[in-house]
């Protein structure tokens, strides 16, 4: 069965790019969220196999949202989406429990390689 | 579909039974929410949970009548959270099947109009109601 993915980013544009990458890669995007608060709610509701999480978002940033998601489910797989120059934040997210990261702008082959690794499919 | 019928002052309203978690007697006082729209009545402690409660009269622009009893709080089931709606009184549960279009100037939270015998009943949409509350906060 296709793995379920939740895409979190405050930019609709970015979400669409990431969603298309997943669709082309054989994944099912079960939901999307535009901020960290929504991300936590959607995670609980949809129980996806994987989350891609933007770092900088309104209301609650990606690091806090990751922490909150893992507090509810310590097996959650959260992959951070970061830009170059956000290394310190990415490391903080990894401390918080994120399993991997992808760098924006996202390239399909990079995203799918990371995600498949994380899911143990590669 | 089965609906919970209730009153705001003299007017009758309805919400789908499936969208409601429970109905409780309104507490004497609410904790006021800072910087909130006028329709936000406050929060109440419901068995250890902090539940936001909206005064449905304010939200739907229903003119307040003479001060009645404490009123009831209808708790909308919103998944992992709840939204309380302060209303005047619950009338009961009725099946409403034919729901016509809403009045032209009705709030976005109104799904449509139904009739129970000769009495008109305004049917509300729980999702739109929730969104209307959020909008009241962001456009305040």
């Amino acid at each position, binding site marked *: 069965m296709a793995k379920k993915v939740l895409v979190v980013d405050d930019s609709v*544009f970015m979400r669409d790019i990431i969603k298309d990458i997943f669709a082309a890669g054989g994944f099912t995007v079960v939901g999307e969220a535009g901020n960290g608060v929504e991300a936590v709610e959607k995670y609980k509701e949809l129980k996806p196999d994987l989350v891609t999480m933007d770092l*900088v978002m309104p209301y609650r940033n990606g690091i806090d949202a990751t922490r909150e998601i893992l507090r509810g489910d310590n097996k959650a797989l959260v992959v951070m989406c970061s830009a170059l120059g956000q*290394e310190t934040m990415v*490391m903080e997210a990894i401390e918080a429990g994120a399993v991997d990261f992808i760098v924006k702008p996202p390239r399909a082959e990079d995203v799918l390689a*990371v995600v498949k690794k994380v899911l143990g499919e590669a | 579909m089965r609906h919970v019928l209730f009153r705001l002052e003299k007017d009758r309203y309805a919400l789908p039974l499936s969208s409601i978690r429970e109905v409780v007697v309104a507490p004497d006082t609410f*904790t006021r929410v800072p910087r*909130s729209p006028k329709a936000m009545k406050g929060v109440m402690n419901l068995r250890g949970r*902090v539940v936001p409660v909206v005064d449905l009269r304010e939200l739907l622009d229903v003119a307040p009548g003479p001060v009645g009893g404490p009123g009831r709080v209808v708790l909308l089931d919103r998944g992992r959270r709840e939204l309380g709606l302060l209303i005047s009184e619950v009338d009961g549960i009725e099946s409403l099947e034919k729901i016509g279009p809403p009045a032209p100037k009705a709030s976005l939270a109104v799904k449509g109009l139904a009739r129970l015998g000769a009495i008109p009943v305004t049917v509300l949409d729980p999702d739109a109601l929730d969104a209307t509350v*959020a909008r009241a*906060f962001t456009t305040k």
Partner: protein
Amino acid sequence: MAGPSWDTSRYLTLFSGEATEHLEALGKDVVSLEKGATVALIDSMFRHAHSVKGMAASMAFEGTAKLAHLLEDLLGTLRADVARSNASVADVILQTVDSLSGHVKAAAANEPLPDSTALMTRLSELNASMTGRPATPTAPSPAPVVETAPPPPKSTSAAPPASNPAAPPRFSVKLKINPASNQPGVRGFLAYKRLGTLGNVFDLKPPLDDIKAGRVPQGTITLELETDQTEDAITRTMRTVADVELESIAAIVKAAPVVAAPAEVDPNRVVGQEPARTIRVRTEVMDQFLDQAGELLLATSRVRELSRGMPAAQRPPLDEAVDRLHLLVKGLHDKVMQARMTPIAVITDRLPRAARDIARRRNRDVDLVITGEDIELDRAIVDELADPVLHLLRNAIDHGLEPTEERTAANKPPKGKVTIAVRRLRDRVVFELSDDGRGIDVERVKVLVVERGLLTRDQVTALTERETLMLVCLPGFSTAADVTDISGRGVGMDAVRRAVEQVGGTLEIETRAGRGTSFRLSLPLTVAVVNLLLVGVGDEVYGLPIGKVSGVVETARDRLAMSQNAPVLQFGQSVLPVHELSALLEVPGDARTAALVPFVVVDGDDGRLALAVDRLLGQQEVVLKGLSKPLDLVPGLAGVTILGNGQPVFILDVARLVTA
């Protein structure tokens, strides 16, 4: 980096729509900028520019991305020193916004992008003149090399199982980071963290700080991993990390044969540590540790704020030092949270005695069996549970268990049995108290609920059995001794449920007629505890995190000095702006008749300020609850808590209160 690997035209509409929104917002911000620059405003502008840059780069509009990047740089400089903002800076920003809008319009129309070279030069020159650095981009100054000790062991418990005295085997591990990786430092850090979940890492080369800074010669990392996992498991774990290859792995020390594992292994424990070495620490000292670790976190963010005022040239090394400090302090805070973990035995140890006393009073005979009492929880949760657990035990013996003769008649052993089983379930602790008594009579509960006017008959008939059982937790379900005579329960059950939910737990009840009842508490391991200064404004109570409070001054309003027509408060050597808390919160305060008004001095984002309140109500340690929709839309609220009297109280985020 290579261009995007998708057909960008499909996203063009979205791109132009969203980029235009950001640019319009940015344009509005520039207008506000001319009225006065604040850090919050520049932050907002920075975010918009950053978003436009990211989108343009994704669409491979290099020129647009470059222009947005230069704007971002300028705003970064401005953020460090908002006072440098002036009309001509605002002009250049506005000009850049217009030019970016031109780019987006051209892109949307599939026309060539306009040439903005002149503007780019102007932007980098302006930025250079403000930072004192040359206009050409320079490499960031190398970070100071800090030697670090090997990371602390991943242990979370002071007492390892005594049955495994042998040290776990060590492996020598060599990793190679893919040279094409975008952020080799973060990749290396991720690999290090992932191996850390398997055991303890020693002899890390290069040192962690070098890895984090991306200084990994030839992309090679070597380390020793002490773990009880197999080589195969390590290999499998590393296979889940993209862009890092496990070049080699070899066992260093042959493991001593493992003694038969204990029947119940606490998953929280690392097998095979040194024999237990523990010390006793008074609980107040642990509380102080937590307080001070919390203060350190706040102090660190204060340093970060101050660093914004430094000249831009000094900021990169300073920021890096502050980042590192922040990570260390957070590590310390986590360790202190771990050290607060207390075995649940602290409360279960006294239960056998209590059970005997209660049973004797009721002329019953009871066996109490407790398992899993060494499982640990945050001390605050353990403290909070002491009374509820005693309630549950008393209820089980008083009402759950039948009198001896009734048991014999029902073919049950004459001696009643109460079991308390504690176990870890993922990141929660499940505490289950069960009896083998008569069970709860669900129909009887329904009758009682209706009789007491808590629910109507119609409401009750619609309930499932599970929901009906939860009714025993309704306040007012049982108020008098009458329930002692029936199989219903209720003495203090509302208090039990409240206490459990207070610490973020849940309560479930299960019953089988004639077979018994069990109460299952699912509890979090830790709680977010904050210390508050409670203040009164009109009829309302608010909590201010004590870590943000610098002091309180009581004085009369008419004795405040005035500065630029606004009241100010003399506090030590400084003069602070005064805000009426009631006005900030938009709630009515007391009529201003009090002779002396308390002014609470708090740390805001842009320095200290004084909040006028109506009353001081004292300090209290509370458990913080998050805000759900729509309350999370209110700027300036950090959370909510429920006071001992049942009143919900909002906790304020002072910094956002004055800026948002």
